[in-house]
């Protein structure tokens, strides 16, 4: 673990926290039908706490509907939580106003999954990347285009592509535009929501390398959201696993992938196909589907699909996220 952390150029122990989420909870009311009087509630994010450490990447994995994207939107202050807070630079981001709120918006940026729908088709690359600069008055209008070219160079786009429109770019290049736009305000934190999921494997590798390069150059902090376990393993320093809105495991990259403690993490890891026919692994097949978050299982939320489930222990209450080994948290009674 130490060797790996040196290779990645970081040391976990002496990291400064840049953004901290404390007991975040987000509940959406859902219509239960026209004739129903009682509204249903969907707990999209349920008591999630963690911190982003400066210059490192925190990976977030989970299946669709587990609350990954809702969590990202909460951290960006695009949604307000029902309870809990997010501390950035010593302030709760949900209480920021005016100039301070604008400051926060500059510091925390997002890269979206789909580079087709997240770029305005009627604006050229230069205006897309330059717009945040104008809105936040980062540089005088006369210097915008030179700054845009600088950013395009940083993300590996040609300067003469500045007047081209999104449809003239390939999906990998569009994702580069999205990255340049996120970088334009010199943010400290970038939240990347499935940034490589829509890309082919050879292009995916280019974008992963790019994200790592700019992290090293600009000392950026990433929250990297993905459903692809191999990509998260490659890029992250620490990883957390979400299931039905709750964090079930949180550990350093090496610990989580070499000896996962939560049965759900184990099943996820064993389900991911490995591109090596000689690799002989034992697959843990989960039975059934993801339960609906409207009606989560009683007790431990994973109990309905868990192979190790013990009715007398697991069906009482959801287990707390506890530190089972140094720096390795899991929410399971049995480990």
């Amino acid at each position: 673990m130490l060797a790996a952390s040196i290779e990645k150029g970081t040391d976990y122990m002496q990291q400064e926290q840049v953004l901290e989420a404390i007991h975040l909870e987000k509940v959406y009311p859902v219509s239960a039908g026209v004739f129903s009087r009682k509204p249903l509630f969907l707990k999209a994010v349920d008591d999630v706490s963690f911190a982003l450490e400066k210059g490192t990447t925190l990976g977030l994995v989970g299946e669709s509907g587990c609350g990954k994207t809702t969590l990202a939107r909460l951290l960006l202050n695009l949604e307000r939580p029902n309870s809990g807070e997010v501390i950035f630079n010593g302030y709760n981001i949900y209480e920021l106003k005016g100039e301070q709120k604008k400051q926060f918006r500059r510091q925390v940026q997002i890269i979206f999954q789909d580079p087709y729908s997240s770029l305005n088709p009627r604006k050229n690359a230069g205006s897309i990347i330059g717009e945040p600069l104008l809105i936040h008055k980062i540089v005088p209008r006369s210097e915008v285009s030179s700054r845009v070219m600088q950013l395009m160079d940083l993300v590996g786009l040609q300067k003469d592509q500045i007047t081209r429109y999104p449809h003239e770019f390939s999906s990998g290049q569009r994702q580069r535009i999205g990255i340049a736009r996120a970088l334009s305000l010199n943010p400290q934190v970038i939240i990347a929501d499935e940034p490589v999921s829509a890309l082919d494997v050879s292009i995916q590798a280019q974008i992963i390398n790019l994200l790592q390069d700019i992290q090293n150059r600009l000392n950026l902090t990433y929250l990297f959201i993905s459903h692809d376990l191999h990509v998260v393993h490659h890029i992250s320093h620490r990883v957390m696993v979400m299931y039905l809105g709750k964090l079930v495991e949180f550990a350093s990259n090496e610990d989580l992938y070499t000896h996962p403690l939560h049965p759900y993490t184990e099943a996820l890891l064993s389900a991911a196909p490995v591109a090596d026919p000689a690799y002989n692994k034992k697959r843990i097949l989960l039975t059934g589907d993801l339960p609906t978050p409207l009606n989560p299982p009683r007790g431990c939320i994973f109990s309905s699909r868990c192979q190790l489930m013990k009715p007398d222990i697991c069906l009482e209450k959801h287990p707390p996220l506890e530190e089972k080994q140094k720096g390795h948290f899991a929410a399971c009674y049995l480990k």
Partner: protein
Amino acid sequence: MSSPLLEIKNLKTYFYVREGIAKAVDGVDLTIDRGETLALVGESGCGKSVTAYSILRLVPSPPGKIVEGEILFEGENLLGLAENKLREIRGNKISMVFQDPLTSLNPVFKIGMQIAEMLQVHRNTPKKEALESAVQLLKDVGIPSPEQRIHDYPHQMSGGMRQRVMIAMALACEPQLIIADEPTTALDVTVQAQILDLLNHLKQTRNLALLLITHDLGIVAETAQNVAVMYAGRIMEYTDVATLFQRPLNPYTQGLLLSLPRPEGKRLTPIKGMVPPILNLPVGCKFSTRCPHVFDKCTMEEPDLINKQGAGAKRHLVRCWLHQ
């Protein structure tokens, strides 16, 4: 040695669009034996789906047209068949599983009816018996309490369940070949594992052949016996799975494998540049614009797909000037 179940010879499927002729599939040869799983792998736009759709002549025409080639299924050329004869093969002897089960199932019919329809159309089975078979098929694909579930509409099921229904429909007439076009791409990883496990199990118990179209090399490694790598409408490499992963010969295959994220966290080596536009492919080798080993000859003349057998591999076809 018996003759192969399906043999594709020099298949060319072109699309005639305003801007020119898009040669989506340009001279593809493949064979599938009974009980074999062949994976067709490549990045988006390489022609893998068009190849599969061409087998059952499902390519929309116009603009698409199969301009050349033969598709022999049990010795019979599907491209020469009359439409009503072909209909006896589609869904009956060769069936398909599509990527997105939500758009491939009819939202206004109960799933039991949709499965039963297969048998009513192809076998003239009476409705009552067909529905009984539907229950059995749902049981075979691992859907709990199938007697009740046949009355569900597609929207009442989860994505994994819907894909199981699609597979049940594909199995209804006991086909010899299933073409699965990215069958798990829309699914979560734990559900994907269930579906791949189901396909493997069905294949073994029913001696099915499977043409698996995917972009995921992990799935190829875990489910297929043979694999063909496609790029720009051509097969670049075609061999058994073990050989492909241990000794890839074509620089494109090598590039794909090196692009995969690896646990060691070392820097990835992506393939430089991007896929050339299909209407404007380079002269010579189609990979020459991105190949790290490119030399003069590559940009002038296109190499043939030749057999570099040896070191245990019976068939190791590769299209590259380095190996001619």
